[in-house]
Structures are given as C-alpha cells and as structure tokens.
C-alpha cells in the first residue's frame, strides 16, 4: 500500500462524554484522501465535537482516531504530527486581534515550524492572494468584515500546508451577504483536491461540493450518503424531518 492509498481519517467506535452526557456514541467514519465530507444535523448533535476530536481540541474516551495513519492518543509526538497534517477553520474565525493580517498568517509558521520570517511572509502573501485579500495584509482583523476575516482564517490554516482541512460552521457567524465569498473560497479549495470535512448548514454547498453527506443526531451518525441521494431520497425519518425543517 502506498501513502496515497491511505485513508485521510479513520474514526472507529468513538465514544465521548462531557461529564455524564454521552455526546458521541459509537461513531465510525472513514474519509479517503481527497474526499469532501459535509457533516450536518440539528444543533447539539455532536457534529462540532466530532471534528474537534480529530485534532484533539476535545479528548475522546473510547475508540480510535487516526489521521494519515498516525494514531491519535496520549503521545505528544503523534499529536504534533497530526496537527501538522490538519488545518482548522472556526465559526468565530479566532484570528489573533493583536497581529496584522499578514502576521496572523506568518507568525504560526515561525512559531510552529521554525520558518524564517521572510519565507513565512512570502507564504502568507501567497495564500492571502489565493483567498483574494492581499491588499488587506497590513490591516488588523478588527478592521475587516466578517467574510474577509474568515478568508484570512482560511489562508492562515493553508499556510501550514495541511493535508486535511476541518471547517467548523465557517459561515454561521457571518452576515448573509458575506456567506458566498467564503463558500466560493472553499469551493476553489475543494476543486484543487483538498481533503475537507465541513460542518455546515449550507445545503447548496453540500450538494455542489460534497462526495458524501453525514447526518448526525443526538451523538449518532444516522445516515451517510451521496448528496443527491441524501437530499432527494433520504432513507431515515430523522433525516427527512431535518431536511424539511431547514429547506423551509
């Protein structure tokens, strides 16, 4: 088996509790390299928790997660290796407000990879151009619109050259007129073959980009299907109810 044949992410028999609350129940999910997965479901269903387990922002208690063949566990070395492979975009952007846009993209490369400042800034400008925002490089995040901030956050994650990108409700905190610019950036990324796992309620995006849609409810994976089948002929009653609610 060559490296390319490895699955990007393998989640097996995963359980997680917050205190006594059983938030993830026996989750199995395999994501192939280059695959685009959209995770949806009602709020509180554990979608965000699931992807936050994948780079250890949350710890799981049972089962296993491996990323590009590296097992996620208590090994600090493995965790560092996994965080090198996985980039993440947050609902509330989480840009560093005390740094300029360019610094937001350059400093993590210097701190985490020991890159030289010049190389890091070059990389930063490359990806800022890619998300079509290079002219804002010297501004501070607080001076940008929400959509612009989220595109900077995507550029910042891409600067670390991840193999997998996790998106945790990337458009939920945006004003409606800014959703499109962020989704367009994500579509471009998908077209370039990035492995993506996206928690979102943007069903148009799911239909257009996803290879598979994962529907979760109450901590369980209820249904996994191709987007057309998922939207046009959902098999599970919970899925039908959810789709009826969000499609109005």
């Amino acid at each position: 088996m060559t490296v390319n044949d490895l699955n990007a992410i393998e989640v097996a028999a995963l359980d997680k509790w917050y205190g006594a609350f059983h938030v993830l129940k026996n989750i199995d999910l395999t994501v192939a390299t280059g695959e685009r997965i959209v995770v949806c479901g009602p709020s509180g269903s554990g979608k965000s928790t699931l992807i936050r387990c994948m780079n250890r922002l949350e710890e799981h208690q049972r089962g296993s997660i491996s990323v590009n063949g590296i097992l996620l566990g208590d090994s600090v070395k493995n965790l560092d290796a996994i965080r090198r492979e996985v980039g993440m975009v947050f609902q509330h952007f989480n840009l560093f407000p005390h740094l300029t846009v360019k610094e937001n993209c350059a400093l993590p490369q210097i701190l985490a990879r020991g890159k030289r400042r010049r190389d890091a800034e070059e990389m930063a400008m490359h990806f800022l151009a890619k998300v079509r925002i290079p002219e804002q490089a010297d501004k501070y995040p607080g001076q940008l619109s929400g959509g612009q901030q989220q595109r900077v956050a995507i550029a910042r994650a891409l600067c670390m050259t991840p193999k997998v990108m996790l998106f945790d409700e990337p458009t939920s905190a945006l004003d409606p007129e800014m959703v499109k610019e962020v989704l367009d950036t994500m579509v471009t990324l998908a077209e370039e073959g990035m492995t993506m796992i996206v928690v979102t309620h943007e069903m148009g995006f799911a239909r257009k980009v996803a290879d598979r849609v994962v529907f979760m409810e109450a901590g369980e994976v209820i249904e996994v299907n191709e987007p057309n089948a998922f939207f046009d002929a959902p098999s599970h009653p919970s899925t039908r109810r959810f789709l009826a609610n969000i499609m109005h």
Partner: protein
Amino acid sequence: MTGFDVASTAVHIEPSAPPKQPRRPLLQLFFGDLVASVLTVSTGLLLILMIPALNWAVLDAVWATDNPSACRDGGACWAFIAAKFRFIIFGVYPPDEQWRALLVMGLILAMILASLSPKLWGQRLIAAWIACVAVMLALMWGGFLGMTPVPTSSWGGLPVTLLLALLSLGLGFPFAVFLALGRRSSLPIPRMLSLMTIELVRGLPLVGLLFVASILLPLLLPAGWSIDKLGRTLAALTVFAAAYLAEVIRGGLQGVPAGQIEAAKALGIPGWKAVWHIVLPQALQKVIPPLTNTAIVMVKNTSLVLIVGVFDMLSAARVAATDPVWGAPYVESYVFVALIYFLICFGISNYSRWLEIRVQSRSYR
C-alpha cells in the same frame, strides 16, 4: 399619491453637514441650573480659601538667600530647597561622586524614552534594559576604572527611589506572569503554590514585609551569609509588586477568549510560545489601566523604605529639614518631594493613556 410604487427607485441624496449647534452663553453654562450654580459657587469659595496658601507659597516666599535667618517671617522658604537641592536628590552619596548618580538617572531617562514606542518592544529591548541596569549598578557601586567604591548604605535620594521602583516592577513582572499563569493552571501544585504566595503577600502590609526582609531575614540566614540591606528591601518590594501585578495580569488572561488558545493549538504552535506570543500580549493590552495603577502605587510605595533605614528621596528630604541652621522647613521639603513624585506618576499616567488609545485604535474598529 398613496401606496407604494412597486418599481420606484430612490432619488440619490447627497450627504450633507449636520445642523450647527448654537454655543451656550457663558452665564448659562455656569449658572444655568441649580447644580451648575452650586458647583460654581463652591469652586469659587474653594479658590478664595486657597489664597493664604498661595500667599505662603508665592507672594511671601523667600526665593533666594544665603542667609537662613531671612526665612523666619512666615512665607515659604524655597531658598532652603535651593541650598539643599543636591542633598535631597542624591542623599548621602559622596558629593565628589554624584556625577555617577546623575549619569545613572540620565541613563534611566534615556532608556525609558527609548522604550516608549511599542514598536520597539521585544527581546532586544529587554536585553538592552538588563545590560543598562548592570551598567547603572556598576556605576553606583564603583570600585573600577578608578571610581571610588560606594557601599549601598551610602546610596541615597532620587536614584535609589528610581532604582527601587524600576527594579521592583521589572523583576516583579516576570514573577507575576508565572504566578498568574500558575493560578490558572489545571495542575494542582502550581495552582496552590501561586494562590498561597499571592494571598500571603497581599495579606501582609508592605511595611510588615519590609520589616521581615530587613530584620527577620538576616536572623534566618545561616551564619556568615549576609545580603545587602538595599538588596533585601528590593526583594520585599519585588515580591509585593509581583503579587499585585499577578492579580492584574490574571484579570487580563481571563479576558482572552478560549478560541485564541484553540486556534494556536490547531495551528500546532507549542504551548509556551502560544502563551508568550498570542495570549500574553492580548491579556496585557486589556489591563493597561490597572497595570498603570499598580506601577504608580509601587513608585510611591518605595518611600516606605525609610522605615527600615534605606535612604531614599523622602528620607533625604526629612533629614535635610532637620538642619538646625534653617528653621525646620519640613513643609517646603515635603512639598518639593511631593512635586517630584507627582511629576513621575503624572508622566506614567499620561503615557498609559496614550498607549491605551494607540492600542485600541489599531486593533479594533
């Protein structure tokens, strides 16, 4: 026409200037209503009450004389300050060597001016400060390049006040950061140690701490060990500053959203680098006003060292006023020292306001 014209387009409206606010007449400003009138009248009364003080300080004052007996007729004796100026500023530091203490103060001023702009903050500036402090202490001590050695018991006046304030804050700050981080740690031992240190030090009055450092500490040390008295005093001030700064910094740390740490983790930034480059700068930006407050309090707290016999500026002023030749001009002496403290603290306060505006305007809309 009533109802909506479905296909209407709004006519473009040019932006215009807001209407002019008429100036309020002065009479109305000062006596417009009851509150304004009461304030105006009471302020006026206060000013009238201050006339005798003004008479004492300015009109009846003796500004320059070589003859101390000229100072006996009621007004302030500023001639005394002129005569004792060097003593109040430099204390008992040997007069022939006072240029060294003056040079130290010049260095402090130059370094402070060089550190004002946040653009220059960084490891290089910290290194420059450490080097400069070493040079300052060497200058004060002497004993090389033909400079007479001056023991710390002969140091005095404003240089001692400035060095104590600067060093207690500068040395206390890194401790404070560790205490603040320790107190928020999820590990029980650092958390308990930090909590105990902070609560213990805050629970003691500074005077008590100074007594412990200057009297108890030498008794506790094994025979043959001794730490210089000025050093012990500095240690007490440092611990005190650290405890208070720690609580201020902890407040700032609490204001940094959890998402910032999560973003740093997700990017693979190692923990301590994330704290230093991501969390701390944001935490400190949020607590500029209380940090300033602590700095000002510490500058004034250094005056308490006179209780354990360290010869700071206030001690020098007190001793100067006991000179029997001059008629015990304590008030003049204290007013002069108060003025110097005020200038220092007012400077710090203005600087912090400038810093706050700068930080806010660049980071936030």
